[in-house]
């Protein structure tokens, strides 16, 4: 392998890793909701789109940096999630119907309303936030003068990655150390047992849906400096979130992080070595492969090792 090829490979791996960090954040929101609610939130990507629009308008109207919008879009989406759960999902959980998938179809409906409301309100133009640091990057040769290969690290990508790490860390702390976090985990592990232990399951459901939406809203803010925005963008990210959750193992937070990283790397490799247009196909191939050969996801591998000891 020549140095040029090595350069391409390393660069691909770096961008895959950075993308994977953001994917992990999207996947975490989805996996939280899935763990506690036992439903797939097919409006997940659309919620992210809403977060991105918040960041976009904050930037365009008030010049607020997209990274600061994390602290605006996150809470807004948190309350939006709570409202969706309280007024739409909960009533459906109560009604009797032939198909148990009604809740999933409901989230499809919510997603349709969100994306088409965005089309009406903001037109279907592609938008982006032209931040000043948008195209700047670190170069390996700046630090190590005699480097035989040249690698670059885009600044917005790296900042987004660091933010994603920080949010993931905060979430981990919340789930592991606080009472409410423990209640959420208990609800997701065994609903009836949690109920018997005095956990307010209804409240945990509402909070979890809010938390999941807030996370994906924050992810939207991290995406906007490096990506473009249009109303129909949600569907694509819903699928990504779902692939990550399957890849990681249902309801497993560590799994979602690993799943996100794997998917990011894989997509980046497909885009470089097979072709840009094929990256989504690669995404589904890995999804189907995971379903067939590793139905429990990465989390099942981790679990197997702990039990083996």
């Amino acid at each position, binding site marked *: 392998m020549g140095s040029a090829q090595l350069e391409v490979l390393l660069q691909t791996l770096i961008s895959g890793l950075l993308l994977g960090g953001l994917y992990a954040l999207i996947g975490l929101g989805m996996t939280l909701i899935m763990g506690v609610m036992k439903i797939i939130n097919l409006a997940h990507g659309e919620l992210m789109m809403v977060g991105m629009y918040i960041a976009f308008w904050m930037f365009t109207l008030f010049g607020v940096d997209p990274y600061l919008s994390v602290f605006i879009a996150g809470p807004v989406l948190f309350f939006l999630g709570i409202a969706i759960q309280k007024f739409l999902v909960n009533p*459906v959980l109560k009604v009797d119907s032939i198909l148990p998938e009604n809740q999933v179809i409901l989230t499809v409906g919510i997603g349709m309303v969100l994306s088409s409301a965005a089309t009406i309100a903001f037109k279907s133009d592609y938008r982006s936030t032209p931040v000043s640091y948008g195209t700047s990057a670190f170069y390996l040769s700046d630090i190590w003068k005699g480097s035989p290969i040249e690698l670059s690290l885009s600044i917005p990508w790296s900042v987004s990655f660091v933010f994603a790490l920080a949010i993931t860390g905060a979430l981990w702390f919340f789930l592991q150390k606080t009472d409410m976090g423990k209640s959420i985990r208990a609800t997701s592990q065994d609903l009836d047992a949690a109920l018997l232990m005095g956990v307010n399951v209804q409240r945990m459901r509402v909070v979890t849906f809010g938390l999941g939406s807030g996370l994906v809203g924050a992810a939207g803010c991290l995406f906007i400096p490096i990506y473009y925005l249009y109303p129909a963008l949600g569907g694509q990210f819903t699928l990504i979130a779902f692939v990550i959750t399957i890849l990681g193992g249902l309801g497993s937070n560590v799994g979602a992080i690993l799943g996100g990283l794997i998917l990011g790397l894989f997509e980046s490799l497909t885009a470089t070595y097979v072709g840009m247009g094929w990256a989504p196909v690669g995404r589904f191939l890995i999804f189907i492969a995971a379903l067939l050969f590793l139905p429990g996801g990465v989390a099942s591998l981790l679990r197997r090792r702990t039990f083996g000891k």
Partner: protein
Amino acid sequence: MNRVAIPLAVFGALLALPLIGLSSYTMHILVLVLMWTTIGMAWNLLGGYCGQVSFGHAAYFGVGAYTAGILYFKLQISAWWGIPLSVAVVSVFAFLLGYIVLKLRGPFFALATLASGEVLRITTENMGEFTNGTLGILIQQRTWIEKTWYYYIILAIAALTFVVIRKLVASKWGYYFVAIREDQDAAESLGIDTTRYKTIALVISAILTGICGAFYTNYMGYIDPHIVFALHDISIITIMIVMVGGVATEWGALIGAGIMVLLAEWIRAIPGLGASHQAFFGILLIAIIIFLPNGIVGDLPKITRLFRRARA
């Protein structure tokens, strides 16, 4: 008696409809309603009776449409041959996809089918040589300018689908399907080969959808991956038709297709809101799920009760 008389009366009425001299636009709407009715009935077999909610019927619709399209585009054979050929092609596709997705249950099945539709769309887009990529396939000469013959062809397909599904649901297989929907483990323990019967339901449902796809190519004269493999405009609309009309009912698909097609046309006519039909569909879907979870036909007793109470 009613079981035979009502379908015959409806069929007779539909048969006579073009004779009263409807405008070309009305005929177009009727053709669309019948096409969506057929797809809805096909979906209902798998989703309503067998309980496997598919979010990817666009996959079969698209494969059917492209079978006809490629016949014309690559081999210069009339796209009408696509209708019989699509039966073979779609059943192979459905069998292969079913092998993967039917191992999954409930929401996982739903999502895997959704992914299969998207994979086919992207693959079709990227195989430019074979499918003409995103440019799509245009049928240069239409068979008829008049809509009447198209109408009778799709009416025949719809009627055939109705009969096939009614026979299936009344047969032993139909009971197996419902048993699988109600409790797959219980069905399995009673000796029903659930994978086999789920595959049968999927393949039949896919074939019927694929025939509609091939018909669509002939009728519209133009297809591209974004139209025929559309997630929202095909897969989700199919689900909505059945949800609105009534899950696991004979007439639900017809009622649902009628409402959805008319609603889409009606919204399109409102200036400034044309692009937003999905918002209305979404709101309708949410309302139906919350208030009429079994659809208009399924919840008919509930609706009549409400009306009676309102009158009293």
